[in-house]
């Protein structure tokens, strides 16, 4: 009965298969969004699930007018930013036991690990909009694409980006002075 209520397109196994393949190709990006916006594993899983559901619902309307990745970023960031639920498992951002699983799995040099810890600790102090900007910047998205995703004009984006860089510098300087984020 429920299947009858679904749009016809979504019932096609080929469409589902195609969608799953595309999501798998871009899942690293989705994980990164979840990691930036959620503190705990449980919250990250919830957000990941919500993003997948929103992607699937919007998929029949994707006509390839923009790049798939642009479309994906829009949905992921819209879901993460608008989803203003209270985080269920808020933890201190610098707790090394709660570093994202993937980071724990990869062998980094000591210096890289320190930097990554500092980065996450600093990013956690940014606003939702600033996090989106940092994410797109680190993902090497052009200002054109950032504008297409966020809807902020490029001049404004550049100004904001410079401010964020400065803010991150200040945050990390303060943390280093207090020995926070050091393993």
């Amino acid at each position, binding site marked *: 009965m429920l299947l009858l209520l679904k749009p016809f397109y979504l019932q096609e196994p080929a469409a589902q298969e195609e969608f799953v393949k595309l999501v*798998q190709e871009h899942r690293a990006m989705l994980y990164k969004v979840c990691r930036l916006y959620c503190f705990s594993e449980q919250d990250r899983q919830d957000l990941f699930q919500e993003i997948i559901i929103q992607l699937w619902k919007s998929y029949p309307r994707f006509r390839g007018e923009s790049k798939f990745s642009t479309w994906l970023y829009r949905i992921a960031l*819209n879901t993460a930013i608008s989803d203003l639920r209270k985080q269920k498992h808020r933890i201190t951002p610098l707790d090394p036991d709660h570093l994202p699983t993937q980071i724990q799995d990869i062998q980094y040099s000591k210096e890289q690990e320190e930097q990554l810890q500092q980065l996450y600790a600093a990013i956690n102090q940014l606003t939702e909009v600033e996090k989106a900007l940092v994410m797109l910047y680190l993902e090497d998205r052009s200002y054109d694409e950032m504008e297409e995703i966020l809807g902020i004009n490029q001049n404004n984006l550049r100004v904001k980006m410079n401010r964020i860089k400065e803010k991150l510098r200040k945050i990390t300087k303060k943390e280093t002075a207090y020995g926070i984020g050091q393993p």
Partner: protein
Amino acid sequence: MELDSLKYVWHSLEVGSDQSAGSEAEIIALLHKRSRGPIAKMRRNLLGEIILVLATYIPTILFYLLDFEGRLSGIAWLLGLLMAVLAAYYYRKDRLLKEMQCVSCQVKSNLKLQVRTLKKYIRFYILSGTLMIPVMAILSYLLIRWKYPPPPGAALFYQVSGIAWWQSPLFWIGLLAPLTIGIYYVNVWYVNKLYGRHIKKLQELLEEMEGE
């Protein structure tokens, strides 16, 4: 720490992705789950309300329509009228909730859309919540007068024979006006409790995106 120097470390995160998470089967399983987003929750609550109203009103309407040899069918008409008003109310609310977000739009325009529609939704909520009781009271009064016209000289709802024509409506206005004002303030407080924090946060995000 320079942001640019971290790009390499950031990109290397893709390499070590956990294979168990986000597997094909897991993603397919997620497609069949229900959204837990705020708007989806609001729509589910609305559906719950509609089901509750239908489950309460339909048997009651049928009872008054079929029992008592149809002598109390006026009450059934009244409830039917109330149900029609509620149907329009729920339809409008559902339309607003459907329009409330566009996840595939640009983040800023989606935020604008959410703020605009949520404000509209709140206005509608307050307006309909405030007017529902006085409007229904007036309609009920008119319907009862139509279905059960008082015999000449009889008193109905404090309408004593011999009083001036304007005294009865004045009495009702005097009763309904403070009640309506009270309901308005209760609604404003309740809506603020439900959506106040949410709309404030959305507005802050939008201001941040729009500001230089």
